[in-house]
């Protein structure tokens, strides 16, 4: 299982890549492994939409379960990855790369400090294994 160290993580199993004031979000390797084969993805938020932290942005569905993807911190959606709609299996194959789900402009960078780093997130995943 991979936990890239250049990313930040949430308790809801999203990863966040911060580049300047832009954040890119997807679901983690652990999340895709737990969900197993993804069969459906939809980003329900729209480009230009201003959202608070924890607001629902997307929905995913696997053969096992459905899950929501939330805003890791407040911001404005600037781009969504519609490629995933036709090929949700990308999430299983490349969770940290081609399977990014949406990008947003960070409203309040201070909030980023509350996200987990790779070590803390890996520990959080291990705790749930038992």
């Amino acid at each position, binding site marked *: 299982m991979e936990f890239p160290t250049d990313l930040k993580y949430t308790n809801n199993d999203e990863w966040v890549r911060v580049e300047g004031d832009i954040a890119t979000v997807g679901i983690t390797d652990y999340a895709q492994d737990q969900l*197993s*084969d993804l*069969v*459906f993805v939809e980003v329900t938020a729209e480009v230009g939409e201003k959202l608070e932290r924890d607001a629902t942005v997307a929905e995913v*569905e696997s*053969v*096992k*379960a459905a899950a929501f993807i939330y805003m890791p911190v407040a911001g404005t959606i600037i781009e969504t990855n519609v490629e995933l709609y036709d090929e*949700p*299996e990308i999430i299983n194959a490349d969770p940290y790369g081609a399977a990014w789900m949406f990008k947003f402009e960070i409203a309040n960078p201070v909030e980023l400090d509350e996200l987990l780093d790779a070590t803390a997130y890996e520990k959080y995943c291990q705790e*749930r294994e038992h």
Partner: protein
Amino acid sequence: MTEPLVYEISSPGRHALRMPEVDVPKAPLPEGLIREDLPLPELSEIDVVRHFVRLSQLNHGVDTGFYPLGSCTMKYNPKLNEDTARLPGFAFTHPLQDPETAQGTLALMYSLQEWLSEIGGFAAVSLQPAAGAHGELTGILIIRAYHKDRGDEKRTKILVPDSAHGTNPATTTMSGMEVIEIPSDERGNIDLDSLRGHCDESVAGLMLTNPNTLGLFEEQVREVIELIHGCGGLIYGDGANMNALLGVVRPGDLGFDVLQYNLHKTFSTPHGGGGPGSGPVGVAEHLVDFLPTPLVDVVEEGDEVLPPLYGFVTPKKSIGRVKSFHGHFGVAVKAYTYLRLLGKKGLREVADFSVLNANYLRVRMRDVYHIPYDRVCMHEFVAEGRWEDAPDIHALDIAKRLMDYGFHPPTNYFPLIVREALMIEPTETESLETLDAFVKAMLEIAEQARSDPELLKTAPHKTTFGRMDEVKAARQLVLCCWPVERDES
């Protein structure tokens, strides 16, 4: 043996029956509604009978084998139910005929309303909702109407524990309100501290499944109800798991304001292909005026000679109709029959034996299957379908392998708060021999998971079709009823 599609055994010009000569004047269909391009299969009667009998033999039902599908209460449905539902007086009543000419039908509906009220501890019951989730929606709309009627329009949130039925959040969303998820604590109860943090004047109510989807009785149910009532919210009870409570606890006495009964689970009417369902809603005194219209009531008292006259009435502030006519009446007849068969004592025994059977399985399996909330359960329990020394085996593999033993798999991957969940509900109608055979199978499968994991990964082996490609089925939604192009290779 496989069975072709009905289209594949079609032959042009073949037919099963001849329509009788028309004995009324012909009325032409409106222009444009007649189509020539609708390909219907053409078969003789023997083709049709054999096709459907063969399909029925490929199926697994309560009448063919054990069906421990958690949260679905797949109990045996007495065949007497089918007889009574087909009595001509019930089967041929027309919903639009004058109620005075359908008094037997109305008397049955009235009695069922009264009995369900008594069983749940409520003031009144509507039989209209078509099934469980429809009952939930009806109940939540009643709660919304109640707040609105009091001018309390800021209540827009419904709290839903993470151990609730999956339909609860969906219901809330359908009703236009916002879902707030409440976590469970270590014992599988609602986390009271978290609940307290959400109790304010924006709360319309809480949806409580009790026993919850872990099969556990909410130990702090009184505290939960007091908290919600304390902030002005109402308690919606998901009665899908009522089987464990019959004759033991009345939700109305605990303080529940609304609850749906699943006649198709608790009260022995066929479901899951044999349906339809039926989800009557019971309410406490302060919500009676909001029930859907119409209800059956006594409109003229009887006396020593004449029986009472039953009719339809509309509650004063009714949320309106939620279903055409009067709900699934045939299902109501079956549930009524079941209640008459069991009586008060029998009903209590249903609860006792459903709980006993579930606990028997839980205790016999606990050394081999990890049970994360391992305390005395109600009518069902949730085990984990995974072992550290069998890393490739998942709940799905265990479920598929069970089919080789002739058992329907338990519900898997639900509730979401248990890893690789296997949710097992034996019901009260199963014998000790059946339960023992199931345990034996589960223990053997656990051994096979270590000794021959491939046997599980490729299961089932003894069914007509082997492992289905569930991913492909979910990703490629091609639902085609036209003649399919056959691959002749």
